[in-house]
């Protein structure tokens, strides 16, 4: 057994940079083994991933598009986690958030475009928050664990949306489970249009100005959690509920606030997908981003500064991974789900596997240097 290290002596960059990097490297090594067993060359696969995600402009734009989604769901998970709430319901909250975007946008589309956008963002936040509110209320007042309720609410959201998309808001002129398209004027400007201004032609890219919204949301979360009294109170409740009660901070109120903000952020995924990409509700559009967001947040240590690069990493894997599946017949799409799983395993569940060893190694080395 390695003796516990005095936490105050561990430099921040060891626990926040070295440890995640070691975990990531291990995950990638294990993944390389998978690829090797599947009968492909792992080094070749890495080259493909890098080419696919950075090698050409279209690919890079895709990477950033995926990053956008992961930032939203990662931030969503992180905010709740600061109040020690394990919000697994990002997927459902994003789905319902998308419903909000569509319903608002289609009903106010006659207004000036920027106002439509703002209202649509509000719709995403309010619907996502409302979907998170119910589990939050049940947790705060009845003690029903959010892990259980939010996961159940994912299923309810999914069924509800299928019902709506089949029987209520389907584009009745066709058979597919999706709505009519929103009017073209209110679609989010895309990267393709932006590039065209500079005379650069790209085929198609889902990347749109939601990326800027993701950056703004990251700032918002940082400011909220560390610079406002709400964040302060949420963290107090999360770290020590007893102490919060002693200080007159209501755990009930803060559980609900944290979950609603979390749900609202997850709802923003609907902005990227609906205003930016599909321009209508397509069944199953959250496509697992809500779940991957949990890994993104854990890997980013629940801080926007960590979440952004972690989201980018998952963006690379998504985009580069699809490149690999094109070129390597033995590697299927599911292989990359497994790779993600391994990353989640090493940077989430096994996050502290090597932490003590790494930290004590650095502390001892630094000590020795200090003595010399």
């Amino acid at each position: 057994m390695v003796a516990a290290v005095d936490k105050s002596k561990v430099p921040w960059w060891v626990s926040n940079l070295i440890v995640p990097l070691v975990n990531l490297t291990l995950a990638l090594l294990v993944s390389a083994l998978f690829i090797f067993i599947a009968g492909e060359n792992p080094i070749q696969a890495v080259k493909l991933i890098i080419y696919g995600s950075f090698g050409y402009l279209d690919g890079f734009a895709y990477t950033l598009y995926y990053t956008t989604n992961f930032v939203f769901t990662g931030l969503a998970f992180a905010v709740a986690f600061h109040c020690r709430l394990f919000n697994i319901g990002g997927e459902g909250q994003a789905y319902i958030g998308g419903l909000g975007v569509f319903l608002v946008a289609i009903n106010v589309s006659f207004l000036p475009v920027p106002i439509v956008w703002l209202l649509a963002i509000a719709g995403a936040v309010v619907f996502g928050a409302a979907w998170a509110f119910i589990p939050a209320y049940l947790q705060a007042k009845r003690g029903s664990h959010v892990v259980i309720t939010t996961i159940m609410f994912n299923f309810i959201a999914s069924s509800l949306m299928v019902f709506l998309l089949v029987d209520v808001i389907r584009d009745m002129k066709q058979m597919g489970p999706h709505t009519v398209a929103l009017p073209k004027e209110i679609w989010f400007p895309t990267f393709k249009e932006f590039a065209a201004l500079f005379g650069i032609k790209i085929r198609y890219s889902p990347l749109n100005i939601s990326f800027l919204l993701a950056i703004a949301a990251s700032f918002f979360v940082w400011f909220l959690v560390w610079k406002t009294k709400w964040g302060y109170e949420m963290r107090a409740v999360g770290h020590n509920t007893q102490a919060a009660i002693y200080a007159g901070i209501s755990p009930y109120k803060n559980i609900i606030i944290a979950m609603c903000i979390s749900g609202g952020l997850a709802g923003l995924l609907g902005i990227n997908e609906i205003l930016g990409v599909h321009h209508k509700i397509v069944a199953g559009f959250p496509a697992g981003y809500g779940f991957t967001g949990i890994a993104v947040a854990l890997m980013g240590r629940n801080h926007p500064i960590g979440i952004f690069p972690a989201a980018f990493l998952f963006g690379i894997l998504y985009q580069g991974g699809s490149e690999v599946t094109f070129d390597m017949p033995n590697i299927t799409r599911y292989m990359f789900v497994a790779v993600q799983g391994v990353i989640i395993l090493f940077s989430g569940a096994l996050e502290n596997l090597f932490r003590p060893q790494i930290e004590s190694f650095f502390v001892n080395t630094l000590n020795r240097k200090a003595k010399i």
Partner: protein
Amino acid sequence: MVSPILELKNINKSFGHVQANKNINLKITQGTIHGIIGENGAGKSTLMSIVYGLYQADSGTISVSGKEIKLKSPRDSIESGIGMVHQHFMLVENFTVIENIVLGFEGEFVFGEKLKKAKQDLKNLCDTYKLNIDLDSVISDLSVGFRQRVEILKSLYRGAEIFILDEPTGVLTPQEVDELFKILRSLKEEGKTIVLITHKLNEIMDLTSEVSVMRQGEVVGHTKTTDTNKEKLAEMMVGRSVLLRLNKAEAKLGDVVFKVENLTVKDDLGVTRVKNVNLEIRSGEILGLAGVTGNGQTELLEALSGIRKVESGTIYLNDEKISDKDNLLDPRELKEKGLAHVPEDRQRMGLVTDFKAYENLIFGYHDQEPYSKSSILKDNDILSYSKKVMEEYDVRPRSPQLITSNFSGGNQQKIILSRELNENPKILLVGQPTRGVDIGAIEFIHQRLIDMRDKGAAILLVSVELDEVLSLSDRILVMFDGNIVGERINKDVTDRELGLLMAGVA
């Protein structure tokens, strides 16, 4: 000369940059009671954990009866005849005494004949040392004093020759302390060796024949107990002379500011913990509430500070009704009315230990100016305020950005006190203000409380340290089993008398 039963040579141990033990040399003679005294954080517990095999020393040797031993785990030390009675007992609550003692012993199951024999052996041990334990009673039915005896019996049964007792009296009534001391003396007479770790000078003077003083990880003195006195020991512990008695002027009593009528409070399990309590506190007065832990003081404090629901009865602040069954002001509203609360358990309640120090220095006042405006925290103002109060209260280290759990207990307590006292409360509720706090800080904290009193605050002091209640209070209430069983003016009371009241005897 006979070789000492336990000898430590050049023991060193560090945690990161902190050297907890520096070149410790210690010789303990067989058949004596050897005291080790020192402030919190002086390295006493670390040293004893090394002797018990919980930590490994970085360097140095340990010998028992002249033979060097290697201690890799508590099992090794038990085999070498070292037994430890921890501050927190290591007993399984819903097992009987005998089950707890044979638990995990000898690495085999004890049934039938073996159990009978074990029981007979244990009975003999109980008789020899007058432990007076019923071997078949369940631990949860036993009082704290008896649980401690079970721990001693366990070590005896495992063949211990050397007993290490870590702060054994912290949780006992004065009568239980007497009983414990009798047992320790009879152990000594049978040739056993006892190492007593404590920060209480009285115990050292009463019980030990030799004493070693530790300060900042080093042994700074060895002496025969008969060659020293409390003042000298205290000076060695702290490194400067210490005032053992407080400078306290006569109280200037004002009006009744805080009044409690027929208060009844239940705990989380629905058990009535505070039974029909009445009390009044005047401004400029310190009312001490003495009692053994668990007699309702915790629930009383929580009810008075708005954390716990009132079952029946009324609480008044300045003649204004603040809480009753239907109406409970929350802690924040009470703060606004001038009530401050230093909770009993600083880590569970008084602080968010994962927060940075400056965040804890405004905890509960964080939404007030100048710390925040329009819900946005004003970091610069908070930091400059933090630096100021850390200076004023001598919080070490003076780093407002440091995570609170990295401060020592005494400094954490100063963080809470500075926060609660700086608001100049009219009524101050204080629970165990110096629990786990070193002597230097105790002196400081006591002086601050007296200053508050002299400025006209009404103070309710809840403490299990009788010395503390006696040295600070103007008037003393004793709580037993949820009732106030006695009220005394401090001048006319002895600790004997209070001890009997605390035990529910008188």
